[in-house]
């Protein structure tokens, strides 16, 4: 079956996958597995669970390969599948009581002013992100968010799902996605603030 929207190398790989060629499956896993493993680790924060999610994702993908219509790149398709596999894993984990987010949110005085007025950050984000150390720092702060909020922030801001897709994946309303995402971002801003505030002179 021709899939004219895919680049030629992916089209060829897809053809080989559909013919059940062993080498093609290995190529798919080696090409995309690393990125998928990073996604699963970010979401699950546990190496074994992440490896399981990637395995689940590939097995789903192998089963669905005949139905893949080539409307997106293989990598994009596999990204969605591993996000869903990781969500399934999160869902089946024993639910720990959720830590409240309130302690991480900005504090306001009775008159509605911020308790601590915001201060500019030293470096624009795009500049800061050039450093591996900063990327790790940000990921570690995201990991400190309570799970509900961490998951929403990862799906929307890091993995780039849209509001609808996130709502569907988590089986909550789009309104709930927006409210929680906003609260998650406020909390993350508070967590990052001490690291990024301009030096006090």
């Amino acid at each position: 079956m021709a899939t004219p929207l895919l680049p030629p190398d992916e089209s060829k790989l897809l053809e080989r996958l559909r013919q059940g060629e062993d080498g093609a499956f290995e190529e798919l896993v080696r090409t995309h597995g690393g990125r998928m493993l990073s996604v699963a680790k970010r979401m699950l924060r546990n190496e074994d669970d992440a490896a399981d999610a990637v395995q689940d994702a590939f097995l789903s993908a192998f089963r669905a390969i005949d139905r893949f219509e080539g409307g997106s790149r293989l990598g994009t398709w596999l990204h969605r599948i591993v996000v869903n596999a990781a969500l399934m894993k999160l869902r089946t984990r024993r639910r720990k009581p959720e830590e409240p987010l309130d302690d991480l949110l900005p504090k306001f005085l009775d008159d509605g002013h911020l308790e601590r007025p915001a201060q500019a950050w030293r470096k624009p984000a795009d500049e800061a992100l050039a450093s591996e150390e900063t990327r790790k720092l940000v990921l570690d702060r995201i990991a400190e968010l309570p799970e509900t909020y961490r998951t929403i922030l990862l799906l929307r801001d890091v993995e780039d799902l849209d509001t609808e897709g996130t709502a569907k994946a988590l089986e909550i309303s789009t309104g709930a996605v927006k409210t929680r995402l906003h609260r998650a971002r406020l909390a993350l801003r508070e967590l990052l603030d001490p690291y990024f505030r301009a030096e006090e002179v």
Partner: protein
Amino acid sequence: MSPEMDLTCKEFVDFLMAYLDAELPEAQRSTFEGHMVDCPPCKVYLDTYRETVELGRGVCARDDDPLPEDVPDVLVAAILAARKG
């Protein structure tokens, strides 16, 4: 928020995301922007909120990232074996 009323900083923070997503009706939008002019720390707050979102977006290895992490061989083998069932 009603357009004729001033915003508190708390309300400003509550409406930040809606503002950035262009989801505020025109009247509320100008109230929001008015607060930003009157209250420089809230403008700074908005900037750092935006930076926060950008930092989150930037931590993920993108498609053009030349070096994603390698899949461990043992995982590759497990996946290929599971396929054969």
